[in-house]
């Protein structure tokens, strides 16, 4: 075997800080050419959130290996992918079924390290994400930005047990190192999955991404979805995704997963934080390019409604996910009824938290009502981040932290009304409790 290969011509190579890279070892054009498009032209279909995510991953030429575990069929992501590939619509693409979520995460590490120019997606949820934790933490620090972990938000294993939609799972993983992007609505799910790898694989970022959406409320509700032509998606992604500057296992001479002592560990963590922070600058640029290409808003740190030019509002609502839509649908009525100016933002980028952008948006609000939907020991994950973003303003708005919709509980119109009344109470400067929980129009 050895003799058989010695006649091979030397392969071009170049040094990188992570070892020798053989840029021609993998002919990616072959992979691109083998892609079978799902859509030749823009189309409008009906889809739930899981289907939207599955279609997006199937349309990327860089996704050729789809790893999953049966918790993901509860999201229908891998079932949708498998069914498409079983019908040979995927060509040479393959589905890989593993024995546990932990194995899926390990598998993603091995696959993403093997070829850093392909995108390796999976989808998971709740305890599935928790089971991956050991490896999501190493992944978060690995530099493998080509891992795309789609999370369908659900409560985590937390007695009493509940598997319905709230973002406890993703928010419990704030410090894993992933870029976490929340979506609401099928279109945003589809669009975000297409854009997330552009951010994660950017040479200044090199950080895996975790786009996510609410279980049931978004994962299982059907609505209209505009899908783009594969060709256009490829053109967009190829503008952002360049060959990875670092070697992989197949096209490199390199060592991944080295141990360090305390002498260096902190230095690596500083670099990891910097890469994550650079995502704050690059994300809006990708979003703007997406909007130019497809005519819909692209990635943003948050969606904003109801703010006047000068940003001055009586009450600014900070929330995330589909329940923000309930608020938005009644916002004008609330303004009339309470004679208040009411704006709102729905967070998209959860990690890194866009501190500066949130401060600029909320600095002229009188009261900021932060609606948390995940279990938290204190005032709520979002409340703490928003309070921190506003803390060094000369006259910071009052931050009122509330909870609603825990474990996927319905957040009714009455509940929104009651929460706004709660916030209005703070306008007069009166005392508010550090946190309160609302349901069906009542404070609990």
């Amino acid at each position: 075997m050895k003799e058989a290969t010695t006649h091979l011509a030397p392969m071009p190579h170049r040094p990188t800080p992570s070892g020798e890279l053989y840029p021609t070892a993998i002919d990616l054009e072959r992979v691109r050419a083998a892609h079978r498009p799902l859509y030749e032209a823009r189309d409008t279909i009906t889809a739930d959130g899981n289907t939207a995510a599955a279609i997006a991953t199937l349309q990327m030429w860089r996704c050729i290996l789809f790893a999953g575990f049966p918790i993901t069929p509860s999201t229908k992501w891998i079932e949708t992918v498998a069914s498409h590939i079983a019908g040979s619509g995927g060509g040479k693409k393959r589905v890989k079924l593993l024995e546990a979520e932990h194995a899926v995460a390990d598998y993603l590490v091995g696959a993403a390290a093997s070829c850093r120019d392909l995108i390796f997606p999976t989808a998971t949820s709740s305890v599935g994400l928790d089971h991956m934790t050991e490896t999501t933490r190493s992944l978060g620090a690995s530099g493998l930005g080509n891992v795309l972990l789609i999370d369908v938000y659900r409560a985590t294993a937390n007695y009493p047990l509940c598997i319905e939609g709230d973002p406890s799972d993703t928010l419990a993983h704030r410090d894993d190192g992933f870029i976490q992007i929340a979506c609401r609505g099928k279109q945003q799910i589809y669009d975000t999955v297409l854009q997330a790898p552009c951010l994660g694989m950017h040479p200044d970022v090199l950080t895996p991404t975790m786009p996510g959406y609410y279980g049931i409320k978004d994962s299982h509700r059907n609505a209209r979805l505009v899908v783009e032509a594969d060709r256009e998606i490829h053109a967009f992604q190829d503008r952002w995704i360049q060959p990875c500057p670092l070697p992989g296992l197949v096209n490199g001479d390199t060592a991944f997963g080295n141990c360090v002592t305390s002498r260096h560990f902190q230095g690596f963590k500083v670099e990891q934080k910097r890469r994550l922070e650079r995502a704050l600058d690059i994300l809006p640029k990708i979003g703007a390019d997406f909007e130019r290409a497809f005519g819909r808003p692209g990635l943003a740190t948050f969606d904003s409604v109801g703010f006047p030019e000068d940003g001055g509002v009586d009450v600014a609502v900070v929330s995330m996910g589909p329940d923000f839509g309930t608020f938005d649908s009644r916002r004008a009525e609330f303004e009339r009824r309470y004679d208040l100016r009411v704006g709102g933002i729905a967070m998209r980028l959860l990690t890194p938290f866009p501190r500066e952008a949130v401060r600029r948006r909320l600095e002229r609000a009188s009261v900021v009502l932060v609606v948390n939907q995940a279990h938290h020991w204190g005032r709520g994950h979002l409340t703490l981040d928003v309070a921190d973003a506003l803390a060094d303003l000369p006259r910071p708005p009052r931050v009122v932290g509330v909870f609603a919709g825990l474990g996927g509980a319905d957040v009714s119109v009455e509940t929104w009304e009651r929460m706004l009344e709660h916030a209005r109470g703070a306008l007069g400067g009166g005392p508010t409790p550090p946190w309160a929980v609302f349901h069906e129009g009542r404070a609990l």
Partner: protein
Amino acid sequence: MEPIDLDRTIRESTLEVRGDGKAGGGLVLAFQSLAGLMLRDPDVHVQEWPFFSSARRGANIRSFLRISRRPIQAACEVTRPVMAVLMDEGAARSVDFAQGVPPGGTFVLNTRHTPEECARHYRLSGRVVTIAGDAIGAKYLKHPIGNVSLYVAAARAVGGMGPEAMVDAFLEALKRRHVPAAVLSRNRDALLASAEAVREGIHDEAGPDDHPSAPWEGYGELPVGAQTPLRLSQRNRTADFAPTGLRLRFEDPKTACTGCAHCITNCPEGIIRFVPDAERGLLVTGVDVSTFCKLCGECIAICPEKLFCEAPFEEHWEEVAAT
């Protein structure tokens, strides 16, 4: 240069001690015993810990000890010890055991050299205490291990404890490690013999630029995710893992090597040198002993022609001092 009074340091502030040795050489036991000894005085506080790493047998390790009559609050590393201990001279090949020690500090060394020779070689200014611990270990414990003696020398350097307490504290540390009674008895003999063998002198050989505390120079460029190039191991001189004072020797004056290749395939480091040979297939010509050989002895055990052996190896101090 006035030697620093250790007892006064313990009374008025904190005596900080740092020790260098090799994993498996008993440094940790010596420091634990020293801490146990000091704690026999109910008014004394101690803090004792080894540097935590994945060091395997023969690799450099460090131990630390703080002793004070006041409760010890400091949690930071000891970087300017008043007393520095060298358990194994081989450990001093890759670190400066006296780094950061102020003039007048105390230096305790397990060595067969005299305090004066050590002061000149290591450029020490202060109290130099030496003991030929390996020889005592070889005599009483059937193994050239110097930690018993070094413990005695260090305890005497700190002072304040009688010989009985000194013996008891060490044996207690051994008992906690479930050492059998016969071995305890041999250790007692070694402890008593060590007390007679400590040598000491005051010397002033350090220049103003010797043993500076190394400033931290930043992390430099770190590769993303600690993903690194390969073949960096050439910087790692694992020959220092070998027992100090010994090296592997290969001698084959009569070309007796049969080319069986067993030494090559059983060398854990893959450092047996050989040349292709028409008759034998290959002919072993030597070993890279100075860089990587840990002197594990597998080649010695396996060679059918007994071409490998352990041989004394001594570093020439004058040469080293001159460079």
